[in-house]
């Protein structure tokens, strides 16, 4: 038989789909920031520029060309890894983002770990005892978690554990050049805020996913073989239920890179979210543009990698 196997065709269509989404993301970011900053020439030159200066700069930067052509120029730079210069910070946007990447990434990973440790067991218990009081309790707790504003929870935890008990620093990311242990220590409270609040989502997903699997034939088979219930739930059901749960965990990490803005601000963490908020307040559009683009691209790429992982892991899909 000729032609690519279904899996390669699937991969090709997934890659094409991903590139299309990335392209649309780029258009959205370009249009948004262009609409915001207005005329980039006046931003560059200030109010004192003469008509000659403006014309010259427009020609130099290709700004006399139609907008789609300008988008092409911009995209060519972006693909080469050039996100432009920050107006306020006086350095390349990529460098500014890179300097802020560590706290944001560590925070996201720690928070998702906490969310998984709380959410997965609670979700399993909820599904196994469906409709009983434990289920109702955890379901209620999950909804409560989804109703608490992160800044409020952050302030409450700071008052309790940083101000009153003094276990954690009130804010910041350790002194410059502090050892990694001090930085991780500073991240514990914000990670607890995000982890506890996001565990609500993980409880819901684990419960739903487990309930789906517990109704499957192979679970009934396992039970009818006389296997102990714990082995049925943890070995046979959980393994299969983990697939959607891992997806949500992965996407939650992606969404926290840039989406933990509020928590980063409450705790004064020098992360990417914090960078965007200060850029918005200073109208530093190249930074806003670069951050939006990078954050969305990370989400798309993580989403895509999870899909690939399934192809690799699922025995029903053969290469």
């Amino acid at each position, binding site marked *: 038989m000729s032609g690519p196997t279904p899996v390669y065709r699937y991969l090709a269509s997934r890659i094409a789909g991903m590139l299309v989404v990335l392209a649309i993301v780029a258009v959205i970011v370009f249009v948004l920031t262009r609409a*915001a900053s207005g005329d980039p020439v006046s931003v560059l030159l200030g109010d004192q520029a003469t008509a000659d200066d403006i014309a010259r700069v427009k020609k130099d930067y290709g700004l006399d060309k139609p907008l789609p052509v300008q988008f092409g120029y911009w995209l060519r730079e972006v693909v080469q890894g050039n996100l432009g210069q920050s107006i306020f910070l006086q350095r390349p946007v990529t460098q500014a983002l890179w300097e802020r990447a560590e706290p944001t990434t560590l925070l996201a990973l720690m928070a998702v770990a906490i969310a998984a440790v709380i959410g997965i067991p609670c979700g399993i218990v909820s599904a196994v005892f469906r409709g009983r009081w434990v289920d109702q309790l955890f379901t209620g707790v999950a909804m409560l978690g989804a109703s608490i*504003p992160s800044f409020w929870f952050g302030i409450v935890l700071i008052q309790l554990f940083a101000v009153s008990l003094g276990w954690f620093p009130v804010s910041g990311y350790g002194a410059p050049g502090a050892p990694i242990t001090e930085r991780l220590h500073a991240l514990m409270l914000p990670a607890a805020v995000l982890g506890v609040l996001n565990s609500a989502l993980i409880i819901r997903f684990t419960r739903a996913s487990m*309930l789906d699997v517990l109704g499957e034939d192979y679970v009934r088979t396992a039970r009818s073989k006389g296997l102990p219930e714990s082995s049925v739930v943890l070995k046979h059901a959980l393994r299969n239920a983990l697939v959607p749960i891992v997806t949500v965990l992965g996407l939650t990490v992606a969404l926290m890179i840039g989406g933990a803005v509020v928590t980063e601000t409450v705790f004064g963490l020098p992360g990417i979210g914090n960078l965007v908020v200060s850029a918005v307040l200073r109208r530093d559009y190249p930074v806003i543009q670069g951050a939006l683009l990078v954050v969305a691209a990370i989400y798309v790429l993580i989403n895509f990698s999870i899909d690939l992982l399934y192809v690799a892991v699922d025995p029903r899909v053969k290469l």
Partner: protein
Amino acid sequence: MRLPRLLRQLMHRRIVMLSALVLIVIAVLALGAPWFASADPNDTAVLDRLKGPSAEHLLGTDELGRDMYSRIVHGARYSLTIAALTALGSVIAGTVLGLVAGFFRRLDAPLMRVVDAMMSFPDILLAIALVAILGPSLLNVVLALVLVYTPRVARVVRASTLVVRELLFVEAVRALGVRTSRILWRHILPNLLSPILVQVSFIFAYAILAEAGLSFLGVGVPPEIPTWGTMVAGSQQYADKAFWVVLFPGLAIIFTALSLQILGDGVRDLLDPKLKKTL
């Protein structure tokens, strides 16, 4: 399912009724804020600053001596209005998009790729960027949040449209020669009411949290307007001396968002017995 029957069934569930009651009380307080408030929400009294809850000031006073209870009641007006308009706007826009994407196969892929792209930005980050572009005002916060939540609704409505489109009665009305616009409006849309209703209550809850977050960051509603978010933002530095300045506006947010989610969940359970198990 018909709405009156739905209401009757909802009334049988105590927790759902309790949530509805909480929402009604908050809505009534908000609508009648000038009558229910015990003081002008902007009246400052420096001598009375950061006073704890008392008979005179039910929920205490903030750092400028303003009455917290009156500010929360007045803040409810702004917070609820913003959230309600956001829910309404994004549900209308998302329903139209989702219907079109789900019904017309040709438009499905392009529209959904745009939805995918919009949803690759974290909600709050996209909202911040949009408000930064539009400028901070009540209306622009609503506009930004509508743009953030429209794709979410579009996805849900599209998925349901895909199912309803294949039902036999749709084929029947099509065979009868009914106009496409009429099929969409009279035959498909009524069957999507339950998922849409659920989305309204959830987006209402998300919007309350999002507005509070934006205002807290100082990129949302201008700080001189009392919303639950601006109240926490303005007073947070006094939290160690006077916990009530942060506690009470936060509780207002939590009670409202929680009640909305319980209500939405209750509606979903009753409207779609199949979904019951997926929470």
